[in-house]
């Protein structure tokens, strides 16, 4: 049952991601991005990271996607047009070249991962032997909070300062002025 649900979530995630990148209508593609994010949050639950899944839904679906939709609605409708293929330059390769690169990259990744299953990292084997893996009955939120405030305090503060810098920068960039 668990494996079946995992496969369901992963098929929904990967399928709607593939549909997303091949869709002409950008608003529909963005709403498909909702589906991808929700099913990836479901996959986080299967990795026993329930708090990360909730954060994903809150931050991505509640923040990032609404931001993208607002950026559409507040701007010109030219922004929505997927442009026709014209002369090709380096960055925007023709579709089949991008497809070739993506598929070969996928092949390399999958080959590496299948090969790497025989050589499990030592710390994973050690923690599995010691029984120190996260179990479904564990209270992850409490442990996450304690570790965030003790062992990971420095990255936490650095991230909060960086978040403030990014928000100030975004507010500065979108000012209504003649000059940027």
């Amino acid at each position, binding site marked *: 049952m668990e494996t079946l649900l995992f496969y369901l979530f992963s098929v929904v995630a990967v399928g709607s991601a593939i549909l997303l990148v091949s869709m002409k209508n*950008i608003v529909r593609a963005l709403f498909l991005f909702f589906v991808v994010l929700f099913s990836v949050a479901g996959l986080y639950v299967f990795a026993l990271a329930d708090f990360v899944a909730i954060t994903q839904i809150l931050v991505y679906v509640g923040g990032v996607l609404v931001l993208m939709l607002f950026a559409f609605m507040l701007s010109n409708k030219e922004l929505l047009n997927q442009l026709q293929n014209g002369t090709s330059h380096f960055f925007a390769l023709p579709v089949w070249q991008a497809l070739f690169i993506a598929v070969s990259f996928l092949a390399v990744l999958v080959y590496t991962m299948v090969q790497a299953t025989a050589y499990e990292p030592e710390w994973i084997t050690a923690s599995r032997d010691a029984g120190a893996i*996260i179990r479904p009955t564990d209270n992850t939120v409490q442990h996450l909070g304690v570790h965030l405030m003790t062992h990971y305090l420095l*990255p936490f503060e650095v991230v909060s300062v960086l978040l403030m810098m990014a928000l100030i920068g975004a507010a500065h960039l979108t000012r209504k002025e003649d000059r940027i």
Partner: protein
Amino acid sequence: MITLTHFLIVSACLFSTGLYAVLARRNAILVLVGIELMINAAILNLVAFGRYDKALYGGQVFALFAIVLAAAGVAVALAIILNVYKYYKTVDPEDIRNLKD
């Protein structure tokens, strides 16, 4: 219990899809969506490996940090895209080439 390889293969599929979007789409917003897909694949890897780190919860904590950084990145990138649109009247990455050599 779902093994690590399953998570890795799903995240590889998501990553390649994002890579395709970054390379092939000709609208900057969809390029941004492709980058977000790649970030999500990376976070899935972090979370999948983090299950074996009960002592410090390193994977899950850094997955949270990565989500926060991605959100901040999206805010700045959308601001930049809107400014680029105001200046060039297009969001095709191919047509924005005033910095070319």
